[in-house]
């Protein structure tokens, strides 16, 4: 079976600095691959080359068998890859429905004039969130009134609603309390059940072991090792993150 996403020989040079070199890995549908590594290991650079923000100096990315490299961020998103950034890219002053549809709002026409269909967007948002096991108390309230876990769920709902086949999550639990971290882990498992591939960026060991099907450790811009959670332990992962040879 061919993989959903294939990363082949990615290299990125900034000026004379080689940030990332010779990164290879694959992600299958319904699988969660964790990109682990210390700060500055090159995790974000790899992600940005996948999501179209940076063009790689060398190497290609294939998605669903098609070449992805060279597409704009919008093109990558249209192909079915949604990136959820740490700040979640939510507009805090808008309700979940508008956040779900931001940039692609639903409108209805009245006397020839377009009017936002807020009610329909709210209903859709509540439905998608329900599918993630999250009940929004007041669908018309701005998302700043929601908990960290619920806000994360909106960002994930956005990915699901627009039929993303691969979701990239950047440190999703970084700013959350313990119960909310659990909520997010549960969300990741539901995404997997829906057959969505996930790349999770993290340097938090409990998260890594709770979510990963495979762990890819980056150290100083190269892949330090690839492990299954069942075949490794905290100690080894830390050692790999510190850059010890595998």
């Amino acid at each position: 079976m061919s993989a959903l996403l294939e990363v082949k020989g990615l290299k990125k040079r900034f000026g004379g600095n080689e940030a990332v070199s010779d990164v290879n890995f694959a992600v299958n549908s319904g699988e969660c691959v964790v990109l682990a590594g210390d700060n500055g290991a090159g995790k974000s650079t790899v992600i940005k080359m996948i999501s179209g923000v940076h063009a790689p100096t060398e190497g290609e990315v294939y998605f669903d068998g098609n070449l992805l490299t060279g597409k704009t961020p919008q093109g990558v998103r249209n192909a079915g890859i949604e990136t959820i950034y740490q700040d979640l890219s939510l507009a805090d002053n808008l309700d979940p429905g508008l956040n779900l549809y931001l940039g692609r709002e639903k409108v209805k026409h009245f006397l020839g004039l377009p009017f936002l269909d807020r009610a329909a967007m709210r209903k859709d948002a509540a439905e998608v969130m329900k599918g993630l096991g999250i009940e929004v108390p007041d669908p018309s309230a701005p998302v700043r009134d929601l908990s960290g876990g619920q806000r994360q769920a909106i960002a994930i709902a956005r990915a699901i609603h627009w039929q993303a086949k691969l979701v990239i999550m950047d440190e999703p639990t970084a700013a959350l309390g313990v119960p909310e971290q659990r909520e997010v882990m549960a969300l990741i498992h539901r995404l997997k059940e829906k057959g969505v591939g996930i790349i999770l960026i993290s340097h938090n060991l409990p998260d890594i072991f709770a979510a990963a099907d495979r762990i890819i450790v980056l150290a100083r811009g190269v892949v330090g090792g690839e492990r299954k959670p069942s075949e490794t332990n905290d100690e080894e992962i830390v050692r790999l993150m510190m850059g010890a040879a595998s």
Partner: protein
Amino acid sequence: MANQQIGASFLRSLLNAWSWLFLVLILGFFEIYAQIETGNTFLFRTHNMQSIAIAASQILLLALGLTLVIVAGHIDLSIGFTTGLSAVVMALVIRWLGPDIGWLAVIAAMVVGILAAVVVGLINGWLVAYLNVPSFIGTLGTYGVARGAALIVAGGATVSIRSDEARFIGNGEILGFPIPVITAILLAIVCHYVLTYTKFGVHTYALGASRASVERAGVDVNKLLIKLFIISAVTAGIGGLIYTSRFSAGAANAGEPILLYAVAAVFIGGASLTGGQGTVTGTVIGAIIIAVIQFGLVFSGLPPYWQFVAVGLVIIVAVLVDQSKSKLTGGRT
């Protein structure tokens, strides 16, 4: 616990409606004052209401477009002299075309006047969007440039005109409503529609909350900013056209005394300097509050300078109300 929650949500809705309450309060104050002092009514006299409506509409023409810019998290100080520039340009075009071609001259002059405003808006938008100049500084620059340009084309003087058509637009009435007031009402409806019911409006709110959120949603933020500054300049420009029509003369400083009142109206109406909040209905109430204070103080025979003190105090109250609102929402703002 439940009681506390009900109390807090009641307080919050009270704070949301404070500008309405405040308006009712000052109207009530002036009514009672008038009854006691003169035995006459303040509220139920057409002349008073018309004067307040005209004063409010002058403020509104500058404040309406500004509301959208402030919701987006920016500010447009240039509107004070965009108004003046449009006023002078319209007057000059009417003079140049002569009084004989009537409506055609007035309409042509208005189109050119608006185009002058659009140029200012384009420059503002370009500075803020593409050159990343903070809007406060950028529009302070164009404030000076527009002021100079208006004075230069006007030769430093007021440009008086003779046009019955223009005078009708500035002073005529339709069904008892002064045309400047009708203009402001129509423009308020258009701006309310744009901000509340269109994609453009949602993107404006989102931009005020988080630039990244709109950018990553695939919206061209630079184009959005340019459109916002053009809207702001155009409503201010319409203010200039009304000024020239009303006084049969275009003056470079036509909008200058109203600029701060316009900014104040937007903030009294519930907007925040950090962006992401504010409404057109709020701005309308804000403008009416200022107009009532202005006219009411004159009406009650107090020295007119008290209006500056009163409006200043209302602005401070507006900010305090905004802050206590965010405290009530648990500091999550």
